[in-house]
């Protein structure tokens, strides 16, 4: 536990200072905007739960620089993502790709929603009755008289 706390302190130590620095920014605002979008989808590999955009770790800085170099070289977003994944693995993606191993991750919430909605609907149909018969005119009159 103490080791874990120490690791945690170290990570916060890295995180609490400064992330993206002014000298890293690209001159072209459109490219820089794309760089930020890409960064927000990439995980800092040595941090607990930070994108490289928020992280102060040297490795995150390397990755930010790498992305910007690729952007300046005219690569598309998809090419850059593929390049980063080829180099660091799927672990680097904050939005996991839809694959065999992640089908349950992406599918479960929506599948459960669909199944539950269908079950509710079918149960309603099967029971098939409107919850109660409406009042007959005579009953309604009796009710109104009673209420007056």
């Amino acid at each position, binding site marked *: *536990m*103490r*080791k*874990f706390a120490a*690791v*945690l*302190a170290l990570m*916060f*130590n890295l*995180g*609490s*200072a*400064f*992330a*993206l*620095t*002014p*000298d890293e*920014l690209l001159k072209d605002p459109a490219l820089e905007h794309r760089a930020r979008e890409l960064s*927000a*989808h990439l*995980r800092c590999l040595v941090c*607990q*739960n*930070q*994108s490289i955009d*928020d992280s102060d770790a040297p490795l995150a800085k390397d990755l930010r620089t790498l992305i910007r170099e690729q952007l300046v070289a005219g690569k598309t977003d998809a090419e850059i993502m593929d390049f980063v994944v080829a180099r660091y*693995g*799927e*672990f*680097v*993606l*904050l*939005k*996991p790709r839809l694959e065999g*191993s*992640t089908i*349950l*991750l*992406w599918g*479960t*919430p*929506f599948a*459960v*929603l669909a199944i*539950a*909605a269908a079950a*509710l609907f079918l149960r*309603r149909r099967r029971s098939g*009755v*409107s*919850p*109660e018969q409406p009042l007959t005119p005579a009953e309604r009159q009796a009710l109104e008289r009673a209420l007056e």
Partner: protein
Amino acid sequence: MIAEFGHFALILATGVALYQFLVPLVGAHRGDTALMRTGISAAVLQLALIAVSFVVLTHAYIVSDFSVQNVYENSHSAKPLIYKISGVWGNHEGSMLLWVLILAIYGGAVALFGRNLPLELRSRVLAIQGAIGLAFLLFIVLTSNPFQRLDPPPIEGNGLNPILQDPALAFHPPFLYAGYVGLSIAFAFAVAALIEGRVDAAWARWVRPWTLAAWMFLTIGIAMGSWWAYYELGWGGWWFWDPVENASFMPWLVSTALLHSAIVVEKRNALKIWTVLLSILAFSLSLMGTFLVRSGVLTSVHAFAVDPERGLFILIILCLFIGGSLALFAWRAPMLKAGGLFAPVSREGGLVLNNLLLCVACLAVFIGTLYPLALETFDGPKISVGPPFFNLTFGPIIMPLLLLVPVGPFLAWKRGDMAAVWRRLWKSLAVAVVIGLIVLAVNIRGPWLAPVGMAMAAWLVLGAIADLAARIGLFKVPLSSSWHRFTGLPRSAIGGILAHGGLGLMIAGIIAISLWKVEVIVALKTGESADVGAYTVTFLSETPLSGPNYTGRAGRFLVKEGDREITTLVSEKRNFQPSGMPTTEVGLLQTLLGDVYVVMGDETTDGARAMRMYYNPLVNFIWLGAFIMFCGGLLSLTDRRYRVGAPKRAISAQAVAAE
């Protein structure tokens, strides 16, 4: 000697918890009133013992008794008093002690104020509370003793993690735990109902105030945590979909569902089985949150193995309580009689939809949080699940719910009339759409979510206002009689309106900061300035800084709007003693319309300083909304019909009024 006294009290409390678990349960089973009554004394005694233990540990912190290992590791004599006190729960052992203290407070409250509960139900609820207390007390006594001594005692302590030395975070854990643990009462009521095989309107009326209290504490606890993250971590973010945040958000989602389904049980005697299941799930998620945060399993499955003893212990507690209660549910739930038919379009139908969407939204968070762990456990690929995943799954599930929130309160019980709802709500909808169109016109190139989100926020707020207006007949009857009706409204009704309106404000804040945040990253020398939104920020000066347990640099910034000087902000970089850990203090100008947020970074090569500045529009609406939701809960809680112990009297009072 004092510390040993606290340890001893804790061990005694464990024994009392065992008694509180077994004896009232046997008493209720045999119908033995004397045995059942002892459960009440046991709960009060347990509270007293744990309180003694907690006070002893707090005392050790206040006097900086470094012969106690826990104090040595987490405190420092130069720390301000408030952080010495908050240091008590700023660590594993102390936070578990706080957990059982709050559990004992709830147990004591049921024992002392539950006079209107049937004795059998009260005994069983106390017994379940006793069982939970026993499990966690054993955990503390056997694996996490906060009173462990050091010999020889060190001269000085290690200090508390400096980013935790903050007023909002000092009181974040007690509120969060009050929420987590409060759900144990709903859980205990659910298990007791399963043992008795009976759930009725009275049961729901007893459960609701406890759930409401837990929900309020969760709401304010989560809001405080997010507020802290916003100004302390210095990234300008307020929610990161971090597993630790998710661990507290899941019980919130399910307890919100529970709060709504308990209304159906109380008013219509329907959804009983479902409500019992939700009570079990809500507390199960609280336990899981405690496990996730406390076991270290979140960093990696392998971190869990660093300290397997504690992790395994909590895992066993988790399996016993969740597995046991779900097994009991599977066995006994079919005996609970379903009641109260209703049409699909009705208040009940709306609340079913509310529950469905809230639970599926919670499921999305659950899967996203635990999936990487599960894959790793089964030797699958290592993946990360971050904010983009949650935005894509949680977002679309919760959005239809937000659209339906204003409709629900206008639906009649049993069979609703959509035409009538439309007549009362079309104006609100029209205004919301117009607001959306204005946002679209101003922000034509912006993301599509901006107009939709703002229209939705407006719809929620206007819907809440329309609800109030309809209830008091605003402009339909003379103002004086509207006022009279207003004062006659049940407080729980106003509470609900406030909570829904607060939600709308919160959505407005979330949408605004997500889409219109202005970020400026720039290197400044003293005297230079940068434009941040409508403001100009000038770097005035930089001075050395020294505090009680830190040193650092302070930067001063002049904030101007056009030519008008608004204020001077100070942003600090601190180095804490004794750890040498650096933190940043954000310079923050808060206004209702938006914040100017200045973080001073490191020196760059040419002698300037790197600066990170934000304009965060409407960001305070997030916490304002949460606070209004909290107030709504508080107002409902003071409704005499739900006040603990009041139900019986209220029922007879209504009966008299009806005659």
